[in-house]
């Protein structure tokens, strides 16, 4: 009886079995990579804003404190976005005719809010409170990255649960003295530049973190990692 299939199908059959396994593995790897990619998470993506606001200029060069604009961060869950009046406190006096600032003046003139594009947003099923973090020694730049260097604003973290858990499983990695919370250029202690707290110079973040954890009465890990802490 003549063969139904060409002899090459022997090879094809073996390769396709092996290939299927490799393919599934590669597919898994691809999905994993995509899920962590900035295309998916919007991490490091500069979002197009109505006005190209530069944190580097305002925070880095001029030294304006975070709280000047993000006013409710110490008291509320939401850090706050400034109303146009805040911008006009300076820009009614300086750069008054700059074309780049026309949308700001228009907003002030017409009493229409500027439509800022949200850079850091958590989904609705997550309860996040800024005030507790800021009042317990987590700096702005710990989560929001080197804002003082950002010419245009981008998200510094993935905002995945794993990203939050990295700190919530070991807060000592990110605690800083309360006086340094709003320091946009704070660097964690190392042997080159120690950080002083209560008269002691610390050269290791973990040591400083442990001290601060007990000083600031950070909740035990069981509470920090409990589901209902963030999913209320």
């Amino acid at each position: 009886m003549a063969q139904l299939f060409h002899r090459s199908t022997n090879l094809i059959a073996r390769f396709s079995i092996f290939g299927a396994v490799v393919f599934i593995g590669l597919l898994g790897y691809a999905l994993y990579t995509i899920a962590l990619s900035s295309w998916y998470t919007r991490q490091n993506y500069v979002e197009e804003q109505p006005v190209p606001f530069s944190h580097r200029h305002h925070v880095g060069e001029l030294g304006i404190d975070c709280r000047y604009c993000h006013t409710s961060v110490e008291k509320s869950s939401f850090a706050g976005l400034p109303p146009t009046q805040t911008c006009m406190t300076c820009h009614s006096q300086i750069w008054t005719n700059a074309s780049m600032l026309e949308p700001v003046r228009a907003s002030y003139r017409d009493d229409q809010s500027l439509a800022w594009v949200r850079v850091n947003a958590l989904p609705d099923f997550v309860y996040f409170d800024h005030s507790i973090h800021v009042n317990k020694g987590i700096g702005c730049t710990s989560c929001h990255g080197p804002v003082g260097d950002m010419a245009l604003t981008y998200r510094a973290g993935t905002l995945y649960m794993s990203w939050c858990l990295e700190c919530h499983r070991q807060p000592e990695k990110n605690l800083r003295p309360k006086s340094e919370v709003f320091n946009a250029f704070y660097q964690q202690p190392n042997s080159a530049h120690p950080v002083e707290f209560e008269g002691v110079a610390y050269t290791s973040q973990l040591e400083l973190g442990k001290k601060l954890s007990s000083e600031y009465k950070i909740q035990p890990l069981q509470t920090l990692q409990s589901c209902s802490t963030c999913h209320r």
Partner: protein
Amino acid sequence: MESEGSQKSIAVKPEPLISPGHTFSSVTDKISAIVLSRGTTPGWVFGFLIGFALLMLLNMVVGLLMIKGVGIWGIRIPVAWGFAIVNFVWWIGIGHAGTLISAILLLLHQKWRTSINRFAEAMTIFAVMCAGMFPLLHMGRPWMFYYLMPYPNPMWLWPQFRSPLVWDVFAVSTYFTVSLLFWFVGLIPDFATLRDRATSKATKIIYGMLSMGWRGSAVHWSRYETASLLLAGLATPLVVSVHTVVSFDFTIAIVPGWHSTIFPPYFVAGAIYSGFAMVLTLAIPVRKYYQLEDLITDRHMDIMAKVMLATGLIVAYGYAMEAFTAFYSGNRLEHDMMVNRMFGPYAAAYWALIATNIAIPQLIWFKKVRRNMVSLFIISLVVNLGMWLERFVIVVVSLSHDFIPSSWGIYAPTRWDWATYLGTIGLFFTLFYLFLRFLPMISIVEVRSLVHETSEEGHHH
């Protein structure tokens, strides 16, 4: 083995497992002709369309579930598990007979499994597919079903490995995979037979691809036997473990009527009971319609009826022990649970259960009843119903009447509950009809091994 002559002179000879007069080629001719030359008959089309219509109903219900959610079912507090779980356990239970016939009876060298194992294993695979729909559909967000799998995720969370619902995921998916593999491996030589006998090129190519290059060489047969034994060895513990894990869905809870150590063996016995009932429900019309009484003989039906009776008695023991321990335990809540089952709002279901699962199947003790295909068919349907009622009584009655009286409540199934159930029956019958039309419903290879027993020509092997 002695020559045929001395065997014939013994007064009592067991009925043959294959009608005398068959040869190797007549067996192959008969079974492959159903697939290759019989064509699509009006009878088949009629049955298939009914199953397909119910499948379309399932399609509709699933769409509605995705859009509106599980509220379209009757589940509320306190009975938050209704038909979905009842049907899940019912379908999984049915599947167990196929694996028992395929795997355990292979390891026990029971020759009577040969003509029924193919469609019994097909029944298992389709039943597990129907069963698997329910855990997915009963989720609030079925599209997040993959959360049940342990994969590296951006939440750094594993599934709750302490939950029997997660164990179910592993048990059922293992069961499905092993059953499918076992069924497929057994089918390879039969696919080759169909490939060689098919006349149209397309049919040849399809069966040819499915037969994976089978040549019938000694090496292939040797590997086939080894693979069958290995898979049988893998599948055998699954028969016991899968339904045990399913029973853990209930036993892990503290609800009276659920928290019982008898559940694992009682569920496994019940699974085999309902499975054999379904095998009979399928075998009786199939052998009649396709004229296969010479291959699926009266002796097969007799044996299966007896297995059904035996497992039915184990299940009856389970019921008796439940009642006994409820009253003997002195535990007020267990006592109340049992009294509620017998005399509460669902008493009709409980007594129907006793009638259908314990009382009526006792008729099988009578040879006249189990040799009459009509009565056996009816009893098998009654047992199928009874096993469904058992799961209903276990799930719904215990949930409706647990600890605090203020928590008690009634469950009333909605039309969508029934529609989902009927829909899965449609899925099962659609798949089964397709199986009957396109696949050899009896294992050609295995039945040929029985031919020498009845052959006149004094074959030796």
